[in-house]
């Protein structure tokens, strides 16, 4: 077997990919077919994964916008979108803790305020967030321009991305909340989630007027938003606040707040399993398609592979060529499918008003799935090459 080392050198001079590359390009209609087949399987996976992420992101979006380091809420509050407020004096207690730079209330209503669409006079439940306009605690850049106006009574800013039947896009000059006339002084883009059709932001005084505290005084606080003085130790301050407030008020970091919501959504909704199932089907179908392609190709090229074997190429090299080819056809399916999903996400996201985004993470996850789908089927199909018997060629 003195010939083998020489061929090994020759392989290097032929290069790493060319044989696989040429095999792939040898039959253009088949390449088109394979990238179409694999591509649609990838598209299915990406769409399902994207929907799943959109589902969770839609309900996390507002929490992410909260501008604070530490948050106070009722210990019995099991999710963000439920009204379970605590008295404002507990927030005062937290404000007095050393290391706390500011502690401001977020007021919220999810099922107590009805928005009357001025266009058709119909009433719809909306979620309303309110805060002191001098202390904006939602980091929506578009809010800042309108903060001054929110200090006036009976003013509000509305969500342009709310569901269309609310009539918030474009923002009407005025509308009604629970029968009170409200002047609309601006708009922002947030978007609905699976339970809330639209969002309205008001100043604290307007909120208190709309939903007065039955016990008098300022409204109860849905969420306390606390910022720390620079340089203070979050853990120490967290502990001090916990000691300063009653035990039925919980002290949470933003991460904990997000985690509570994510866990609730995962426990209660079936979005996770629903979309996981779609992804799995896409994977299996993609595997079947790519197995079919590689298998056919190998069957057709068997004489060539046997010849190469007869010339002294090792099975290892031939297997490598097959795997390279599988990788290339994975890419040939993945690239167009990813581009198509960017477009589809944009369209579906606009129509369904969902945060559907092609993120780097999603691109990487889908690329990984595509590669493993094609490589697994290549490994399954490649036995044919290993068993290629040079004698059969003749």
């Amino acid at each position, binding site marked *: 077997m003195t010939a083998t080392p020489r061929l090994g050198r020759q392989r290097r001079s032929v290069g790493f990919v060319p044989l696989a590359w040429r095999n792939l390009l040898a039959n253009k209609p088949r390449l088109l077919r394979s990238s179409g087949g694999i591509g649609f399987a990838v598209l299915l996976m990406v769409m399902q994964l994207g929907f799943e992420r959109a589902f969770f992101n839609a309900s996390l979006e507002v929490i992410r916008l909260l501008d604070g380091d530490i948050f106070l809420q009722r210990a019995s509050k099991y999710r963000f979108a439920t009204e379970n407020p605590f008295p404002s004096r507990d927030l005062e207690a937290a404000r007095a803790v050393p290391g706390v730079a500011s502690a401001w209330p977020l007021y919220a209503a999810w099922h107590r305020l009805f928005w009357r669409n001025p266009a058709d006079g119909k009433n719809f439940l909306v979620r309303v967030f309110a805060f002191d306009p001098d202390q904006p605690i939602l980091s929506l850049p578009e809010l800042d321009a309108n903060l001054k106006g929110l200090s006036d009574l009976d003013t509000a800013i509305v969500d342009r991305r709310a569901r269309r039947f609310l009539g918030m896009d474009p923002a009407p000059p005025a509308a009604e909340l629970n029968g009170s006339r409200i002047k609309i002084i601006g708009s922002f883009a947030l978007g609905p989630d*699976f339970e809330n059709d639209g969002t309205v932001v008001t100043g604290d005084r307007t909120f208190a007027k709309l939903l007065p505290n039955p016990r008098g005084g300022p409204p109860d606080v849905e969420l306390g938003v606390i910022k720390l003085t620079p340089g203070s130790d979050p853990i120490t301050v967290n502990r001090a606040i916990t000691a300063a407030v009653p035990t039925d008020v919980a002290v949470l970091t933003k991460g904990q707040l997000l985690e509570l919501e994510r866990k609730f959504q995962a426990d209660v909704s079936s979005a996770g399993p629903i979309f996981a199932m779609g992804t799995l089907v896409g994977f299996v179908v993609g595997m079947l398609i790519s197995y079919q392609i590689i298998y056919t190709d190998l069957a057709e090229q068997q004489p060539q592979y046997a010849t190469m074997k007869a010339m002294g190429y090792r099975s290892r090299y031939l297997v490598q060529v097959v795997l390279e080819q599988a990788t290339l056809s994975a890419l040939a399916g993945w690239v167009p499918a990813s581009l198509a999903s960017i477009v589809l996400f944009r369209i579906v996201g606009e129509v369904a008003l969902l945060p559907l985004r092609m993120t780097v993470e999603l691109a990487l996850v889908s690329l990984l799935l595509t590669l493993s789908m094609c490589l697994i089927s290549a490994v399954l199909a490649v036995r044919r090459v290993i068993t290629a018997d040079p004698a059969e060629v003749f």
Partner: protein
Amino acid sequence: MRFALAWRILTYDTGRTALAVAGVFMAILLVFVQLGFFIAVPQGGMLFYDRTRFDLLIASNGYEYQVQPGDFPLSQLDRAKTAPEVALAAPLYFGEAKWRSGEDGKAPDVFVIGLDPQARIFTVEDVNRQLAVLDRTDTALVDSATRPMFGPLTAGRVVEIDGDKVTIGGDYVLGTGFMGLGVILVSAPNFVRLFPYRNLSQVNLGLIQLKPGIDPDLAAASLRKLLGSDIQIFTRPELEAHETAYWTTRTSVGLLFGSGLIISFIVGVMVVYQVLATQVSRQLPQFATLKAVGYADRFLGGTVITMALLIAMAGFFPALAAAQGVYAVIREETLLPVEMSGTRVAVVFAAALAMAAGSALLSMSGLRRADPADLFG
């Protein structure tokens, strides 16, 4: 002959055919699953109505869907009772409260249905059997689908709802649908005890049962005349249409599962096409020979279509069986009423045939290359 040839080609290379059938199986299964969700969501919204006895539903003009019904005066319901067609007019009260006895000190929201136990409005025997329990003060029946975060639902357990102590009188099997994470039934007097600011003279919904033999459409028309335009009256079909439209168009459900449906259909076409195209190109010399001996293109095309249909059918029936299993799992996991219906089977079967036809048409172009002259090239 077409069938025989198609059969011979498919059985000649069983491994490849099995692959195609597996692909079609997956694609059809996915179509079933997406369709299941697409329909399950409105069905979840209809769950309460489907298990309630009524011919007509009276609701406020602000009625959105079952959980957001608005309210109207009880006097309208009393007036409806005077109509000669009406056998029974029962009020329903809906409220949301904090269940303060949840696991881990959490207080999940519970959907409270207030009703008149004597009216026996449910078709569920399980509920009717236990209705007498509701006459006890501060006693509730709990839906067995209430989530684990509410803690044990054992009869006799005393829980705190808003500020009140309420005794669980038992549980029943109906389903929570989209009413919330937990649902309880209470009598109207207990309902106002839970919600002191609510007044029994404002009701959320009115259930009308008609005397035997009365046509619901005619009765609805005469009740509309009697009660005026402050309220609306739904017959059962009208109500189902309204709720379905709400869930498919007003939420993102329609779009999410609708687009999933379309993509799984296309994936199915791609799988079958893939296999057919390979078969066509592999059998090209044979097809060319057939052409040379005088078979028309139509015959060859027919053979490809037959192959496609055979593959689709072979994939369809196992997929139907598997979908039954998947639906059972989904029912278990999501508590949504996902069920196989005759129409659904028919629709998916039609889709499977369309898949086959679509992929056959795509692979037909390969046939045209079957040139007898090439045989001797």
